[in-house]
């Protein structure tokens, strides 16, 4: 969506909220087959945008969080500030964060991705730290005795043992991110959130609101199941303990 369109929509939002059309005037079903047929292309595009925003945010957040978590678990005095700062960022409301970034980035995907990365960081850093701190010292001692260097130790001992905890973090962060992406609609991004907000502003177009909402939930649940399966495949040794 272009900036201009987004701005026009905000104008509409402000005038609309005061004047309420009565939903009783015309049929306004919650689910409508004809809505799906007529808007399949637009729905698919917003869905794909939603998936892209989620993927971008989670990938960037993971790339930042793992080294940060490693740092926090290795350098003791850094743990409190790193976890503390990510916690403060998590407390800031999403709309405020997206909005505060808009003056610097413009109305597009950037503030949303930056904001979502900041939210995902808390979950990912915490779980990385917890996972790495959970590596038994005897195991590391044994590896050291076998002549493992720092690099080999990280990739072949620490990371695999911390993996279930890190993957759980990615899973929780992904589910929350799919839901949070929708708020991005307020700043001209937001994937399915745009359909929700547009539907709302166009005299409560219920079919559009509900369809987009259901797709969000389905996407989140699908991602959850997918990541749970990947976690099990990546850490077969944890399966027995988990049950």
């Amino acid at each position, binding site marked *: 969506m272009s900036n201009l369109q987004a*701005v026009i929509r*905000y*104008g509409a*939002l*402000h005038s609309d*909220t005061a004047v309420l059309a009565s*939903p009783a005037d015309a049929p306004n079903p919650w689910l409508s087959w004809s809505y799906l047929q007529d808007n399949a292309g637009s729905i698919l595009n917003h869905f794909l945008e939603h998936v892209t925003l989620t993927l971008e945010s989670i990938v960037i957040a993971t790339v930042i969080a793992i080294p940060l978590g490693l740092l926090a678990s290795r350098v003791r005095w850094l*743990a409190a500030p790193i*976890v503390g700062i990510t916690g*403060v960022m998590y*407390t*800031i*409301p*999403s*709309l*405020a*964060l997206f*909005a*505060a970034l*808009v*003056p*610097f980035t413009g109305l597009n995907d950037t503030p949303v991705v930056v904001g979502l990365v900041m939210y995902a960081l808390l*979950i990912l850093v*915490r*779980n990385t730290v*917890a996972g790495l*701190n959970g590596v038994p010292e005897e195991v590391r001692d044994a590896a050291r005795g076998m002549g493992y260097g720092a690099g080999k130790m990280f990739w072949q001992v620490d990371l695999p043992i911390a993996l279930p*905890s890190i993957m*759980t*973090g990615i*899973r*929780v962060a992904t*589910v*929350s991110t*799919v*839901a*949070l*992406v*929708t*708020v991005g*609609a*307020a*700043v001209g991004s937001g994937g399915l*959130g745009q359909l*929700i*907000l547009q*539907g*709302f502003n166009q005299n*409560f177009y*219920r079919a559009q*609101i*509900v369809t*987009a*909402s259901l797709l*969000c*939930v389905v996407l*989140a*649940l699908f991602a*959850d199941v997918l990541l*749970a399966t990947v976690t099990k495949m990546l850490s077969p040794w944890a399966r027995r303990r988990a049950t």
Partner: protein
Amino acid sequence: MNPITDAVVWLNDPDNWQGPQGILSLTGQHLWISFLAVLIACAIAWSLGLWLGHTGRGGNAVVVISNASRAIPTLALLTILSSIGAWFFGTPATVISLAVFAIPPLLSNTYVGIRGVDPDVVDAARGMGLSASQTLWRVEVPLAIPLIAAGFRTAAVQVVATTTLAALVGGGGLGNIINLGLGQQKSGVILAGGFLVAVLALATEGILALAQRMLTPGRVRRKTTKPITADPAGAAA
């Protein structure tokens, strides 16, 4: 001018603090909506959590509710409830959807807190002749207070933060300033609104963290970094 200077100028203009759409009145609205939502959520979640925790039933349901609620976008519930009808539009829809999202942390922490009470202590209480309700109120609840307080803090901070979204569906609160700024394309106003909302959320978090500390005996406080799990029973605190 750059957005930061604009925001400082906007915040320093006394006109922006007064009147029905002024900062003070919007903050009042924001806190009132949040208060109502937390009140409703506590009434439902605490009674349900105490009952389920005391009887030991419904543990799986608590986990499922907590996990499923994460997948539902707040904006979706807000817009759906606001679209039911004109009589529901605005504050009622906002309060109910915020309450719905506040229930899972309150419920799972209350449940886990009550279940986590040492069964020997409960046995001793029963052996001393305490009735079921006396055991609940004099033994289980006091011991579960740290976790219940933690859940309250999580829920309340989340509600204050999420109330911002009410502005998108005509529900009022400080989010209105952000919305106004977006509508008028004034970076300074957007930034000032974002700043005010962030300050309110962080202040709520700070005050409740302090209150929680006072309610939690020293030996129960933990300083370790706990992982967030997909199973909320483990991530209750």
